[in-house]
């Protein structure tokens, strides 16, 4: 309704004897609300979803308040601070990306909004905007969902090297590079002693100093020093919030393997020094070389002593007479 018409209607009602002053005031208030410029009004706060009702970070509360106050640039900064903070839960990340997307749209930064909603949808494929969201936001959101349905988003890639045979009794750090990691996705290393029933797991933690770098630590107590060597099976896996495998190396049926060497003799430890791993011992490699040479010689000897048969040939000269 046009604001001028609304004011005239209110004036008309005031003059009507059947209506009271109370009704007139109500209409005046309504008219005043509509007459005010749209920029002075704050956007309606989104109705909270169930998963947003858990504990939230201070950045989320602050960003919401700033967004409601129309201070979009400040809200964006607070959201970014919240995303960079350590120990942010998945639920908090979802809400922070939602706020970032909404704020970016108000600021006209469609690329940033797209990136934020993409991460949001990767983590929560069933996420829906509240009905009160502006049509522009809803339109972009619908397009992003369509892209995701057609898998036009980058898949998660995992780069991780197999673990070399570790020293017994020492922890093992595994570095991995995870690109296009979906929000809510989880990268883990699964491991077990060869022959054991189930796998244990450790999570990869994000290295905040280096983007896309993640580290998992296999505790030292999982690799005890024993008198005999043993093997450990392991594999890496990235799963999304619904536990669907996004990327990995090895799997439970085809795991990778490393061997843990047995306890070395004390005499060797004394002579070699405590800091030198067993596999750097020159005597080991001398022994390996000797075995290799001996083996080769054995193979050659075997191949050269193959069984033979004697074929006698007698050449006789025959006269060429007809």
């Amino acid at each position: 309704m046009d604001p001028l018409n609304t004011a005239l209607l209110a004036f008309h009602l005031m003059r009507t004897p059947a209506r009271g002053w109370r009704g007139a005031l109500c209409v005046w208030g309504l008219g005043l609300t509509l007459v005010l410029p749209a920029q002075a009004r704050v956007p309606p706060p989104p109705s909270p979803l169930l998963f947003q009702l858990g504990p939230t970070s201070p950045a989320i509360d602050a960003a919401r308040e700033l967004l409601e106050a129309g201070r979009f640039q400040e809200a964006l900064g607070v959201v970014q601070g919240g995303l960079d903070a350590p120990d942010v839960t998945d639920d908090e990340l979802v809400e922070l990306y939602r706020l970032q997307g909404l704020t970016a749209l108000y600021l006209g930064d469609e690329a940033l909004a797209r990136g934020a909603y993409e991460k949001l949808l990767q983590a929560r494929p069933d996420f829906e905007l509240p009905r009160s969201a502006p049509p522009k936001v809803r339109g972009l959101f619908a397009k992003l969902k369509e892209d995701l349905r057609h898998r036009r988003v980058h898949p998660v890639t995992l780069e991780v090297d197999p673990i070399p045979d570790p020293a017994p009794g020492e922890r093992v750090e595994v570095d991995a590079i995870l690109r296009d990691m979906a929000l809510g996705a989880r990268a883990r290393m699964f491991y077990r002693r060869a022959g054991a029933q189930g796998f244990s797991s450790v999570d990869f933690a994000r290295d905040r100093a280096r983007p896309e770098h993640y580290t998992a630590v296999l505790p030292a107590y999982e690799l005890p020093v024993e008198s005999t060597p043993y093997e450990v099976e392991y594999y890496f896996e990235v799963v999304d919030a619904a536990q669907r495998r996004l990327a990995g190396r090895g799997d439970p049926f085809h795991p990778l393997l490393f061997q843990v060497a047995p306890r070395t003799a004390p005499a060797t430890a004394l002579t070699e020094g405590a800091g030198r791993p067993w596999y750097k011992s020159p005597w080991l490699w001398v022994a390996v070389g000797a075995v290799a040479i001996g083996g080769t010689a054995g193979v050659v000897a075997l191949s050269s002593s193959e069984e033979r048969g004697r074929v006698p040939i007698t050449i006789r000269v025959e006269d060429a007479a007809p």
Partner: protein
Amino acid sequence: MRRPTLLMLALLSGCGPDAAPEALPLGLDLTLSRAVASQVGAYQVAVLKDGTKRNCTELQRTCLSSQVSSSDLLELKDADGHTGRTLRFASAPGGSAMGLSVDVPVGRDYALVIEALTADTPTRFLGSSCNYLRVVNSGTNATLVAAPIELTAQPCDPVFPR
């Protein structure tokens, strides 16, 4: 002597196996004409794998070295313990008959090629004899009738490249 006795003696003398000509129960018996033998300075022996896939007629036309690679040859050994993919034996003086033997890895489906080479330097090819060797068993093997060498001198180098 009475007539029945003579008859008996005659019958007895005609019984039994024929007198074997130089009994050589095992090995390869090679015959070449004396005209060729007089020029021969050495014989080169080689054994090829996959004998049935070889065309002996073609192999005899020219030097073996120009037709097969040395990897097709089996490692041989002579009575003196010399080994090689080809073995050479000096011919007997005056081109008379001679005997030689080679030790071949036990197996099946071979082709044995004997090349007659000149005595001069560089060695020239005079002719060859190609023979299918169905099986080589351990120990000493049975006699084979070999194809005679025909004089087909060719301007080729019978030496296999090393």
